[in-house]
């Protein structure tokens, strides 16, 4: 599943980021495979979304979020 499918209140872990340029940019901002992730907010009109990582919060567009593969954790 990818990040766009993550609902509120669920915890997940990033497994893989597709797209070379996007993944590089996300890595540099500290968004890496293995990081735990949580949906924080959805902007008006449903896009972009804000996500919580363990140490910070970042927002990105749905079109980029679909390249972030995640796995739900309990």
């Amino acid at each position: 599943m990818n990040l766009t499918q993550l609902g509120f209140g669920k915890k997940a872990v990033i497994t893989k980021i597709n797209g070379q340029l996007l993944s590089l940019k996300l890595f540099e901002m500290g968004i890496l495979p293995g990081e735990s992730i949580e949906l924080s907010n959805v902007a008006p009109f449903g896009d972009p979304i804000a996500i919580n990582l363990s140490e910070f919060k970042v927002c990105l567009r749905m079109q980029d979020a679909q390249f972030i593969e995640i796995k739900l954790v309990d």
Partner: protein
Amino acid sequence: MEQKEITVALIGNPNCGKTSLFNALTGLNHKVSNFPGTTVEKKTGSVKLSNKKTAHIIDLPGTYSLYPKSADELVTYDILRNKSENYYPDLVIFIADASNLKRNLLLFTQVADLEVPIILVLNMLDVAERRGIKYDVEKLKEKLKIPIICVNAREKEGIEKIKEVLLDENARVTAQFFSLKNVNAEMLSEIAYINDKRNKYSALQYSINASNLLSEKALKLNAIFEKYAFDRIGFQEEEVLTRYQIIDDAVKYARLKNVSQLKASITSKVDKILTHRYYGIAIFLVLLLMVFQAMFSWSEYPKEWIEYGLKVFTDYIQNTLPPGVLNDLIVHGILAGLTGVLVFLPQIILLFLFIAILEDVGYMARVGFIMDRIMRPFGMNGKSIVPLIGGMACAVPSIMASRSIENKKERLITILVTPLMSCSARLPVYTLLISMLLKDTAKWGPFNVHGLILMLMYLIGFFAAILSAWMFQFFIKQKEKTFFILELPGYKVPLVSNLLITIYEKGSAFVFGAGKIIVAVSVILWVLASTGPHSNIQNIENKYTAIINSDTTSEVVKKELSLQMNAKKLEASYAGEFGKLIEPAIRPLGFDWKIGIALLTSLAAREVFVGTMNTIYSVNDDGDNSFGHIKTKMMAEINPHTGKPSYNTATFLSLLIFYAFALQCMSTVAIVKKETDSVKWPIIQFVYLTALAYGSSFLVYRIFS
């Protein structure tokens, strides 16, 4: 010999408290200038370390990595790139947010690998602790092998320790983190050779960045990369991940276990409200309305004090200096021009203050988040909202702020439309014109009508900006892929000292920057308005003086005649001739030659309009430069051809619209030229905005007259 002065660069991620640390180190002892030959803003401050030694601190824009993705990240990269530049630092202070240490240390290891002496400053340890994160600093030192200082930049704690380390020459050490062992050694030598660099990481990193450019060197570099089949993005990915492994190792080693986590941060709770899916935008609009109401009503008293003070001063000068040309020049030229503008200082300071508060609290990033989807169809992104809102203060720094937009097309569109946002220089013009349209006390429900019209002007500017952006996106080609990834920092209470420093910087830039232009323009204008091409001026004066001085003339007639004389004299002056020359071009907009003069002089800067009107109406007058006075005089002006008032509602509305759209600001033209690195875009922008202003004013004048 020991150095007397050292250069220190302050580097860190965005939102790590860098500005607070800079302010704590240097206080008011700093200045904003440009790097030689560029518009890249350079903020430097000095701090005295001992009797003999001073450190010059350069504050650099926050960045995430040394592979710049946006123009502001490029600044930091550029400083560290070239050891022979004279602002290359002797030492780097790397400031890291301890609550987000892992990510912050990525850039740290990159900078350290350039072999520049570096010290690590850990900030926001209190924030980290609240989130249950605590480090053993000794262990971290052991792993990173460089000096580490813990500070609280907001509370100015630990600043003395930084100064001590800056003094200590033995503390200037370098560290190495990432090894290039997996990269072909021959290729590295070749690259280092053509870049004339001793540090291999620096050479490779520079080459990867430079190979994306269109230059002869890029061709050579690309050839080398191809020869060795070197995958640049693959390498960068590997580099970043390897660095994270090294960092993870150090951070895990130094992190203290079993620190109890206090309550979850309030940031998430506040975000649930402020960035709400349905009413987030409404909250934003209400906030803006409040800002404008406050800006209008709070500035009322300070404005009166300034006005009163300047009036007293002007009277004093007028009565103390012997009557004559110098007296005239100072009172009717310089002071008249300055008064017209200084009275708006309170409003401008309030506007900058509100924008600084929204920025410091962390709300501006949220505005980018909630507005991104709305900006997208117009060829911009959420980050464009910061330059656009900043454009309400001043387009020049805002156009520079557009550097944070990575995508070139979105950045260009943002730059092109930012001047349509009503800036603080238009405030004096709007205020003067609105007050001539309506009585000061007019109310509409609980709102001051002036405030509402002012807000309407800002909205007109905003809609013109986004509609123009929508149009521009069809004319500008798009090549690169666009991302919008924006960090939402935790909410903070803004630091009063930071706000005061910001206001001081912006206020003095306005007074001294704009003030210089205004004084110059006022003096030139005064000369042009009091001298003429023919002997007409003297003739008029002689003719009227004879009648006025005759004993048979009554007081009322005398007053009337002297007004007539002044009007005739102005008309016969160079300024009058000049205004008349362009009058045919602006008559369709409802403007006469006097407004024509003001339009021309305000090409330098918009606020000069008010100063110019003041100077025009003050030449040969009683020296009353107050705001109410110029208003009365403009309202009383009679058109000699029609016998009706020269300026009516249609004229004022037409002028309002003209000033809302026209690009009357040479600084903006200059900054656009530099930021777009072209002559084409500022010309297109100037022509487009002038045409828009002319067309709209024409329509407005036709409709309302």
